[in-house]
């Protein structure tokens, strides 16, 4: 029996609630009285009490085995071993000793060729994977020449109007690209069809190359905003894409739940867990309704989880995610294989810790958060945002520094040499359990509301986030939480100390010209017929991916295809996301 479990095994003397009489409790009380109290009388706490960052839970001066007792901690039940249920200590049996995480970053701007050039540069900086973000016209289902999107083409991501654009973007050294994640949720069937067609045309062996599509429409309605159709139809579209991939490209990842989008919208770790997991359940239920079994679909679920500057909240959240997924699959869904209970993750430092002020300080923050990711269990993949985050899309120099941060955490710190090195810490274990317990309660609340889809439709998630946004901002403004450069160590009349990325605005004109050119040279009658086939599938319930595939091959445009589905599904009103207004 390990020391910890010996200490916490409830015996009549140390049973929880009866702590006052145990030798430990007595020793602790005497330390409080004789050693700490006199010191604190002369040197009071800087804050009373210090609170954790997002949950704002009071943090005790000292954690001891009694805190493990208080949550009923049990080593075998709560932790187990790496690569084994409940995976709290990690999903890989050898941690990062055999394999480091795949190192990636997010990128997206301009036209296909602009993106490809940038992607090649990134792969030369020691990155092995890319997360492809599209511009807002694309993710909202509009073509670049739609009057509604004037001024937004290629600005905040890659502009895609046709298969030809995506082929230009995917002009990449595939032998060096280990990971590609595509973030194009609402128009997912169109995007997926284009990706498959483009990769096929490039001669990429689809059974060897691993593609991840995010396909995460439910979080778009919650706090991101790149939606087109009403939520029920959004879910159906997403399920079509998952089903298509599971049946035709079983080595790909058809769904990723980006908890890392809930966090920047100010979800607490408890909310992140509860919202993400209930959202996952909505997708799972949709797949089960199509006749899949849980052991079949659970291994396809992937999560993107970030950590904020509060080291322990972040680390414990990662551990709780692994454990809760495993328990959910086993206990709620009756999964039987370890593969179904083993969560897949991409971890990342958060963007919201990074300041506009004194941007070089962000390098320090990124290193700290990337270390927290590694300590909490980085999972299969890590991505780092960059120190110029609050200024604009990344500049090349920032990309290089960001890539280096991942390497130095991996190779210089030693945090990856042993598995789950913080396990057994009284604070870490008790906080992990408290987060898990609170998230379990929140899941029960969401269940009562009828699940994630209902919670989104009634604005429950959105309102909850709104309250957090307000409260977190107040904390900073009232100086209750220090943020270097913003309310602490502020430089008066600060001058920007970095060079930032600037997009050439001609991109939009050129993209539109190219789109017009494409439309002028295609078989209009065929396009019309193929678009009707998409409408037909939308109406009838047949999988949307095959008709989209046929249409993109005939150069039907991205916007036209989304419009065909709009004709059937209607549009989502853009007011649902306004938290608390």
């Amino acid at each position, binding site marked *: 029996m390990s020391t910890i479990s010996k200490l916490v095994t409830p015996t009549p003397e140390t049973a929880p609630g009866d702590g006052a009489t145990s030798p430990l409790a007595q020793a602790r009380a005497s330390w409080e009285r004789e050693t700490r109290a006199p010191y604190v009388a002369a040197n009071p706490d800087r804050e009373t009490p210090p609170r954790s960052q997002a949950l704002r839970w009071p943090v005790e001066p000292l954690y001891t085995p009694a805190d493990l007792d208080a949550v009923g901690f049990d080593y075998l039940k709560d932790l187990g071993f790496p690569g084994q249920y409940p995976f709290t200590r990690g999903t890989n049996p050898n941690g990062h000793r055999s394999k480091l995480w795949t190192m990636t970053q997010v990128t997206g701007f301009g036209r296909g060729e602009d993106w490809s050039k940038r992607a090649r540069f990134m792969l030369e900086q020691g990155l092995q994977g890319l997360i492809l973000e599209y511009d807002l016209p694309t993710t909202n289902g509009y073509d670049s020449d739609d009057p509604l999107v*004037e*001024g937004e083409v290629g600005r905040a991501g890659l502009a895609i109007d046709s298969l030809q654009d995506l082929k230009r973007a995917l002009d990449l050294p595939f032998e060096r690209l280990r990971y590609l994640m595509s973030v194009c949720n609402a128009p997912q069937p169109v995007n997926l069809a284009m990706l498959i067609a483009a990769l096929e045309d490039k001669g990429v062996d689809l059974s060897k190359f691993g593609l991840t599509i995010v396909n995460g429409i439910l979080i778009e309605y919650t706090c991101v905003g790149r939606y087109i159709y009403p939520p029920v139809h959004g879910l159906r579209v997403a399920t079509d894409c998952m089903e298509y991939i599971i049946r035709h490209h079983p080595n790909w990842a058809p769904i990723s739940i980006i908890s890392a989008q809930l966090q920047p919208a100010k979800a607490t770790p408890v909310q992140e867990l509860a919202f993400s997991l209930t959202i996952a359940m909505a997708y799972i239920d949709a797949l089960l309704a199509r006749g899949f079994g849980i052991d079949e679909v659970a291994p396809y679920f992937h999560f993107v989880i970030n950590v904020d500057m509060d080291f322990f909240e972040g680390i414990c959240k990662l551990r709780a995610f692994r454990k809760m997924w495993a328990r959910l699959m086993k206990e709620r869904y009756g999964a039987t294989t370890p593969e179904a209970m083993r969560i897949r993750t991409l971890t990342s430092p958060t963007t919201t810790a990074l300041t506009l002020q004194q941007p070089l300080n962000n390098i320090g923050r990124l290193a700290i958060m990337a270390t927290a990711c590694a300590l909490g269990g980085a999972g299969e993949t890590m991505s780092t945002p960059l120190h110029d985050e609050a200024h604009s899309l990344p500049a090349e120099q920032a990309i290089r520094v960001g890539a280096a941060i991942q390497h130095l955490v991996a190779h210089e710190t030693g945090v990856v040499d042993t598995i789950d090195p913080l396990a057994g810490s009284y604070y870490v274990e008790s906080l992990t359990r408290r987060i898990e317990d609170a998230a379990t309660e929140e899941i029960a609340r969401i269940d009562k509301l009828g699940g994630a889809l209902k919670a989104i439709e009634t604005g429950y998630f959105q309102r909850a986030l709104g309250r957090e946004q307000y409260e977190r901002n107040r904390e900073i403004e009232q100086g209750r939480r220090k943020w270097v450069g913003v309310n602490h160590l502020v430089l008066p009349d600060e001058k920007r100390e970095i060079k930032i990325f600037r997009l050439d605005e001609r991109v939009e004109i050129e993209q539109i010209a190219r789109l017009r050119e494409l439309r002028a040279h295609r078989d209009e009658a065929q396009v019309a017929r193929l678009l009707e086939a998409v409408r037909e599938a939308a109406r009838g319930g047949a999988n949307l991916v095959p008709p989209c595939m046929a249409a993109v091959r005939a150069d039907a445009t991205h916007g036209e295809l989304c419009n065909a589905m709009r004709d059937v599904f209607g549009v989502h009103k853009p007011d649902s996301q306004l938290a608390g207004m």
Partner: protein
Amino acid sequence: MTAKSSRPLRILLAKLGLDTHTVGITVVAHALREAGMEVIFAGLKQTPEMVVSAAIQEDVDVIGISSLSAGHTRSLPRLARLLREQGGADKLLIVGGVIPEEDQPLLEAAGVARIFTMGTDTREIARYLNDWWLARLARAEPATRTEPSAPPRQ
């Protein structure tokens, strides 16, 4: 926090285009309410035309746009022009969000009165608006000032 006024400043807040970063506009809305202002929310995914029309119907004093996804160089000048064309030149136009300093001259030339970027204390925004409002009220004819609506307390 200002004293309750029988003539509160009215401000329309909106997001233009497809940019749906909502945290900034949410905290600003609450802060301005706390500062005694009437905040009218026009919502997400607005066009400049919709915002101008709403601003006129609501007879707001200020239009506040939050822009984080880099659409500001096109949408804001267009909004400012429409506002002038439709007789709203007396309304103050302010902006917040991700606005690189390189773009500031362009926006100022177009008629944006003030730009607030990340990390701005919302009380500073309220103070700025309050000062502007008091100066405007002082410039208006004294006849338009209203008597206090409640009897003075002892």
